[in-house]
């Protein structure tokens, strides 16, 4: 792998750095996934609780949406590994969600204030 040219040396340095990083990630083991799994189950139980307990409608809806967003973030960050990707990749992947927000934002007032 090592080469005598300066460029070649850079390549092999980089290769080792990347391989070392991957190895470190692999050696972290299953712990982080077990913790994520436990939190997802806890949030799911909280959701079921929030849906069953009689609370004002607005409180129930806010709680449920907040819990769903927290569960979604856990899945994306840890199971889908996004937390460990490069920052510009994270931005590239998350920025299109603005379209989903525009979609919901544009439709919601129309639906809520519609006269029956």
């Amino acid at each position, binding site marked *: 792998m090592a080469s005598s040219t300066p460029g070649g040396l850079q390549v092999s340095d980089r290769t080792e750095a990347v391989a070392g990083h991957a190895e470190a990630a692999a050696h972290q083991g299953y712990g982080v996934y077990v913790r994520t799994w436990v939190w*997802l189950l806890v949030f*799911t139980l909280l*959701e079921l609780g929030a849906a069953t307990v009689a609370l004002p409608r607005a409180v129930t809806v806010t709680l449920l949406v907040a819990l769903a967003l927290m569960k979604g973030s856990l899945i994306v960050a840890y*199971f889908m590994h996004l937390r460990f990707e*490069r920052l510009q990749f994270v931005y590239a992947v998350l920025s299109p969600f603005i*379209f989903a927000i525009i*979609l919901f934002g544009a439709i919601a007032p129309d639906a809520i204030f*519609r006269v029956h």
Partner: protein
Amino acid sequence: MTGAHPVVTDGADETRVSGEWGGGVSPFRVSWAKLMMWLFLLSDTLTFAGLLSGYGYSRLSSPSWPASHEVFNLNLVGLMTFILICSSATMAMAVTAAKSERWADAVRFVGLTILGGLVFLGMQAYEWSHFIGEGARLSGNPWGAPLFSASFFVITGFHGLHVTAGVVYLATVLARSARRRYTADGVEVAGLYWHFVDLVWVFIFTLLYLI
């Protein structure tokens, strides 16, 4: 290293010349397959966002809407959620095992993930047949707002289709991993798809069944 790609060649000049934001040959430092899978999942996210906002519109603008806990069996749906979360965890573990070259473990974990997917699909088939037996149709249902059952069938059906495709996808990953003809990168990309299916279910579970 197997499957070496430009990822390893760009880093050095990149950090030296223009820092993290300089771009270079591989600005995201992810494999091509992984980038393509993320792009696909983004477009799929927006498809589901479209379906869910359509559902939200019909529900909010409808004079009445059936109370979900009177129609659905929340214990069953809670169990389905539990199984899907567990299968996502085993999939994450399969990726870790594959990355540290423990292929026997990886195959076992992918197998468990497939099992989870199949159990989920079985329960969904049971739920659908029960719902249809009570008179729910695409065009209407005994509980009122016709769009209640229509949005239920379209959204859970679309998600179930994704689970089915995921089971087929993972079956090929399993077969190829068992013969040591697959890469850890490939397992990771398949994992992204599976976690996405779990991610979508989080929102379907909340918006269709709980709220």
